């Protein structure tokens, strides 16, 4: 998979003023970040990362000034945290991410859009923002909607491999069960399908394969059933213990 030409643009240490305690609390420790930078620097063959960082250095300066204003206002309110060492806050950058959405022309692959690459890019963006949450920007609002990616791209990528796996398992188990029952009872495959008991078993098997794919699924299904009725039980609680006859039937 071709590495995206996205670069990291950590705000450099011009931010000497004590950062708001808030930013520090969710920063990922540095070794992770540096390792990522190394990977990116070696993989990004096209746009030299240096150039991009220089351009980004100009950006944080005005941000720092306004950051400082917010810091001054909140310094009296901040109670416990001593100002930790200032650290760069990375922002998400990608050449193909334009105006808050993915520019599909940049994902061209022989005349058609490479939807797999779009999915990869979006996954990367979400992961980035999950690890390094960013301030929202009203000028550059994010408007990307995943429904722009056609349904068959999702099918091909996610559903079909799993479907193949499950069908394969079902076929293997089915073949051996049919053989096993035939060898024990002498009832052939066609006669097996005619029997009501066998039809029920088949139905249970199909439902089981769909719902329970991992061992953990059994527990999560039980929890799900409890969950759906839990809230109802909490509301009904006041009617449960009435020794005096209530009007509610």
């Amino acid at each position: 998979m071709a590495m995206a030409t996205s670069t990291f643009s950590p705000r450099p240490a011009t931010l000497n003023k004590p950062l708001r305690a808030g930013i520090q609390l969710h920063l990922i420790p540095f070794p992770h970040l540096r390792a990522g930078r190394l990977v990116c620097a070696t993989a990004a063959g096209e746009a030299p990362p240096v150039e991009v960082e220089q351009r980004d250095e100009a950006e944080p300066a005005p941000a720092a000034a306004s950051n400082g204003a917010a810091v001054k206002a909140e310094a009296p309110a901040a109670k416990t945290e001593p100002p930790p060492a200032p650290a760069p806050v990375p922002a998400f950058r990608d050449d193909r991410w334009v105006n808050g959405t993915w520019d599909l022309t940049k994902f061209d692959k022989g005349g058609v859009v490479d939807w797999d690459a779009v999915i990869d890019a979006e996954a990367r963006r979400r992961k980035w923002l999950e690890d390094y949450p960013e301030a929202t920007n009203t000028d550059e609002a994010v408007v990307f909607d995943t429904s722009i990616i056609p349904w068959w791209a999702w099918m091909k990528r996610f559903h079909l491999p799993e479907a193949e796996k499950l069908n394969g398992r079902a076929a293997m188990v089915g073949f051996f069960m049919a053989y096993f029952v035939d060898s024990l009872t002498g009832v052939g495959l066609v006669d097996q399908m005619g029997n009501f008991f066998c039809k029920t078993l088949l139905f249970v098997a199909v439902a089981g394969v769909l719902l329970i794919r991992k061992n953990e699924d059994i527990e999560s299904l039980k929890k799900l059933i409890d969950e759906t009725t839990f809230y109802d039980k909490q509301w009904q609680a006041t009617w449960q213990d009435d020794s005096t006859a209530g009007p509610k039937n």
Partner: protein
Amino acid sequence: MTSLSSAVALPSSCRARPAGGSRRARMVVTRAAASSPKLPNGRRLRVAVVGGGPAGGAAAEALAKGGVETVLIERKMDNCKPCGGAIPLCMVSEFDLPLDLVDRKVRKMKMISPSNVAVDIGRTLAPHEYIGMVRREVLDAYLRSRAQSAGAEVVNGLFLRYEAPKEPNGSYVVHYNHYDSSSSNGKIGGEKRSFEVDAIVGADGANSRVAKDMGAGDYEYAIAFQERVKIPDDRMVYYEERAEMYVGDDVSPDFYGWVFPKCDHVAVGTGTVTHKADIKKFQAATRLRAKDKIEGGKIIRVEAHPIPEHPRPKRVFGRVTLVGDAAGYVTKCSGEGIYFAAKSGRMCAEAIVAGSANGTRMVEESDLRKYLAEFDRLYWPTYKVLDILQKVFYRSNAAREAFVEMCADDYVQKMTFDSYLYKRVVPGNPLDDIKLAVNTIGSLVRATALRREMEKVTL
């Protein structure tokens, strides 16, 4: 009696009203309470309403209007409650609130996903529809003053405890700390007083003492933490009619962060049920997400409060009942409570008035249960739908992304606002509902698929 004169004046084609017209009408209403004993010496029913918030104020007003002798006990008359302060349109009309009570009319909401996908909702609102933002101290004081004008006695004091009656139709004894009327700021060290009542309405909020005394049981609760931030005027323009909701694991694992406009400042806050110890971290994350927009702001107040997640196991015991937050009537997903508090207070009062035949007969537990039954019947669909939404869409970041994506749809917006503004769960057009279901499943599947991809990505 006006009915007598009207019976004479009306033409004979109208229904003839007998001489005891109004008395008969009253008998129809009070058939249920005909068995309860008439109060001795023709005295009126006495009810204590503990707590003077929206629930208490609405209850006291309805009780007083119904001819019941009402005492409303409130410990802090100028209490500035930490609260989002959003009221739906139906509250303004149902409670005849004057429009100057509403500081701001929010007509646009911005939902922001964990990856900062921003969706504007409110396109489908009609020009007269809005979410009203109020200051709680203003609203609460107004409702209390209305109760007072209706005839309720408003007392500044701190409820201590109550004693159950010794015999079946005896009185409850309410003990409270009476505060001097000249110092209205809840000074500790008032004088202990007590009085007798026939019924008690507990409207004293999430940490209700009435609930404790009656053994109502506990509920799970969320902690809502909020900072009121005064931002410069040019930035306030953005929040003129707009409220924001931020979802994401960074902001809250099971709730949302918000920026709500108040009269001249914004309230930035978040909440959580399961990770209460990390609330400051969530608040910092909320501030970070809104950083550019609240820059240069000064924090003028920090407040926090518990929000119930579900009703208490017992909401009525003897002739003591709970309303509002004390009962736990806060919806899931949105955490809305003001309207349900006021409505439950009013419904409880109306049940007491009906059950006591306008204050002439003793009430019983069954009358109070009638209020519970009616409230549950009216609003159960709303609560259940919001519970389902919370369970489905607040589970994980993937679900939240799907949620924000769904909110971009016009049909969803219309349904959401209709059910919020008018408190009706309206079943829409079945074809549109099917389309909505398909779109929801699609969004959730896509978001989950992306989530699995995200796990493979190493930054």
